[in-house]
């Protein structure tokens, strides 16, 4: 099995005791005395953590935009820069594994700024006892995903922790890419009248993980949609147009799902969103699993889908372009940006009612009955 990367420095240590980052800070006002799982769900608890603890400590104009990637101007060049950690259990799941996810996740965060992804770093935290065979499988998967995405790993790091102090393998990837001068994509740019496009079926990744993790057996296996979206974005940007500036926002609806991501765009742009429930593509198997467990696919994670906000006159053209791409075959226009209810997402339900889609609070939990 080839080892695809040669990390710059390889340090194998016993468990490192990390000093408390905020040891010198006064204790911020915070509802929880301990971190709970919901703080990592991408919902309201995660926002609370960022706003009350991380932002006050690290605030600067670039970070304060809270985009999925930072846009940096260095020597006249526009760079996109992002980082992401991957802690998924199980590490192998239908449609992917933690390594593939670690490449696609960071490539997608870069792609969502319209950047061409170039270089990645990888940091591994390995638990004592992890099978080398499993590590090789993960690394090979990362190599293949990086090759598909046209990126190279150029630096890395490895740590090993005592058995029981980690969960087999944690991976952090950091990525950098170049943004063309003509591209201006930001969550703050959604304007009333714009169409909202979704690149395909929602909830596949989250339900694949949940059914595997919990040993739930459904008639048809649900596979993760884990994929790099850089090429789909390049195709969308190349849609023939009289104006170059037709693509206002791009986001990949990962943790917290489509509903949470659209809320972020609505808040950042101070505009409202109105969706049509019937236009949102959901795979039958995912819908069935969500119905059984009492979950809402609009809040379930995706790893190979994007949401785009496009000027109205270009909506159909961009949609046509997306549908020609294998990752956009099921793309659909799912709603529009509106001037009413700024900062909020509303949805016309299938039977003609109206529903508010708020940000998820914490983890979605299966219901009793």
């Amino acid at each position, binding site marked *: 099995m080839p080892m695809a990367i040669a990390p710059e420095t390889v340090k194998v240590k016993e468990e490192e005791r990390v000093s408390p980052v905020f040891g010198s800070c006064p204790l911020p006002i915070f*509802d929880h005395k301990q*971190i709970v799982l919901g703080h990592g769900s991408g919902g309201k608890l995660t926002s609370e953590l960022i706003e009350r603890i991380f932002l006050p400590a690290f605030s600067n104009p670039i970070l304060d935009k809270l985009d999925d990637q930072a846009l940096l101007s260095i020597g006249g060049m526009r760079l996109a820069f992002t980082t992401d950690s991957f802690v998924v259990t199980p590490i192998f799941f239908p449609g992917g594994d933690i390594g593939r996810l670690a490449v696609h996740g960071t490539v997608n965060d870069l792609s969502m700024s319209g950047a061409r992804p170039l270089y990645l770093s990888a940091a591994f935290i390995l638990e004592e006892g992890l099978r080398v065979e499993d590590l090789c499988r993960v690394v090979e998967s990362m190599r293949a995903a990086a090759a598909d995405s046209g990126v190279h790993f150029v630096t890395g790091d490895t740590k090993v922790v005592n058995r029981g102090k980690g969960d087999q393998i944690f991976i952090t990837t950091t990525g950098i890419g170049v943004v063309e001068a003509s591209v201006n994509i930001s969550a703050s740019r959604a304007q009333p009248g714009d169409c909202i496009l979704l690149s395909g079926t929602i909830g596949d990744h989250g339900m694949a993980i949940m059914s595997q993790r919990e040993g739930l057996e459904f008639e048809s296996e649900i596979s993760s949609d884990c994929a790099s979206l850089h090429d789909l974005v390049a195709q969308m940007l190349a849609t023939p147009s009289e104006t170059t500036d037709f693509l206002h926002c791009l986001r990949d609806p990962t943790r917290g799902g489509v509903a949470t991501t659209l809320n972020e765009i609505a808040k950042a742009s101070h505009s409202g969103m109105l969706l049509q429930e019937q236009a949102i593509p959901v795979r039958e198997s995912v819908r069935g699993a969500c*119905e059984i467990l009492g979950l809402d696919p609009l809040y379930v994670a995706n790893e190979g889908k994007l949401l785009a906000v496009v000027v109205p006159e270009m909506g159909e053209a961009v949609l046509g372009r997306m549908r020609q791409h294998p990752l956009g075959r099921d793309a659909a226009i799912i709603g529009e940006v509106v001037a009413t209810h700024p900062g909020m997402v509303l949805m016309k339900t299938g039977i003609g*009612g109206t529903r*508010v889609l*708020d940000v998820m*609070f914490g983890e979605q939990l299966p219901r*009793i*009955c």
Partner: protein
Amino acid sequence: MKYLDEYRDSEVAAKILAEMRRIQTRPWVLMEVCGGQTHSIVKHGIDHLLPPGVELVHGPGCPVCVTPLEMIDKAHAIARCQNVIFCSFGDMLRVPGSDGDLFTIKSLGGDVRIVYSPLDCLKIARANPDRQVVFFAIGFETTAPANAMLAWRAREDKVNNLSLLVSHVLVPPALEAILSAPDNRVNGFLGPGHVCAVMGYSEYEPISARFHVPIVITGFEPIDILHGVLMTLQQLEEGRATVENQYSRILDRTGNLPAQNLIGKVFEVGDRKWRGIGSIPRSGYRLRPEFASHDAEKIFDVAEIATLEPAICISGEILRGIKKPHDCPAFGTQCSPQRPLGATMVSAEGACAAYYAYGRHLNPQGMDAPLNQIESAPVPVVLG
């Protein structure tokens, strides 16, 4: 999706709504009993589609909501014990007790696990013979058969390290309590479909006759609920009051006899406290004496735990249909799913939590109709 899409069809919905408008001559207040129905109503915006004057109030049928704070505190005390694996349905994990929730206990090192079926606890208990596995057996009649099966199997298979913390409640006594209250404003009920799938609906007939109130056993999809509302309106407008079955594709008058038989072998009826409502005689199940060695309340020393509810909360009035979530000054401000003050905010199926989850506290422009406002005299909250 079969059995789903046909119950979410907008054309069928429009026809049912037109028929409601045709027959309705005066205002009516209907209560959907079950939390799953409340969730569906708010999720699909059904209440905004009904003709003006047909008002839905939300009943006591959310099992997580009506589980007393005291029982939550007992559960947490057990979950904090060394050597315990505490198993629960997912939506109990976020319900706060007097000091944090099960997620917090988990973050402090407690072994708290979500199970999808009570019988999963048998596997966990067998795999951990030196530890005590406790299942939090809550719910209405719907979950009683599966919970009863767990106790039955634990005893039959001699899985001696498995016990149940039981807080089971029954629907009919709650309906009688609501109808007996002098300030009751409910004219008709959408009965609980899944409860009746187990129990049948014959036990609702004496209630309907005694209080002269229509009860239409109703399903959970939008068309089910609209159809249930229409059938109730038809009875009210015609001056009839009987039990009817809208959910006939799932259940009949008799219910599931083997399930009822098992419930009878494992549980006995006793008095129960309801969060927000108080104690109702003969309104719940407890384990029969022969299952004492699997009864967590007898194995763990939790009898002393007694907790009072926050006084500000109006959930008692909400659970009885007297008030709605936005009638509460604390709704969406002091009280939210992050910091619930009472019963109806603690679970996704509680009326307050459903209103919150679907953004009703935000009251945006662009919703179809203004939210129904209720004018009602203040009534004292009955506390257990």
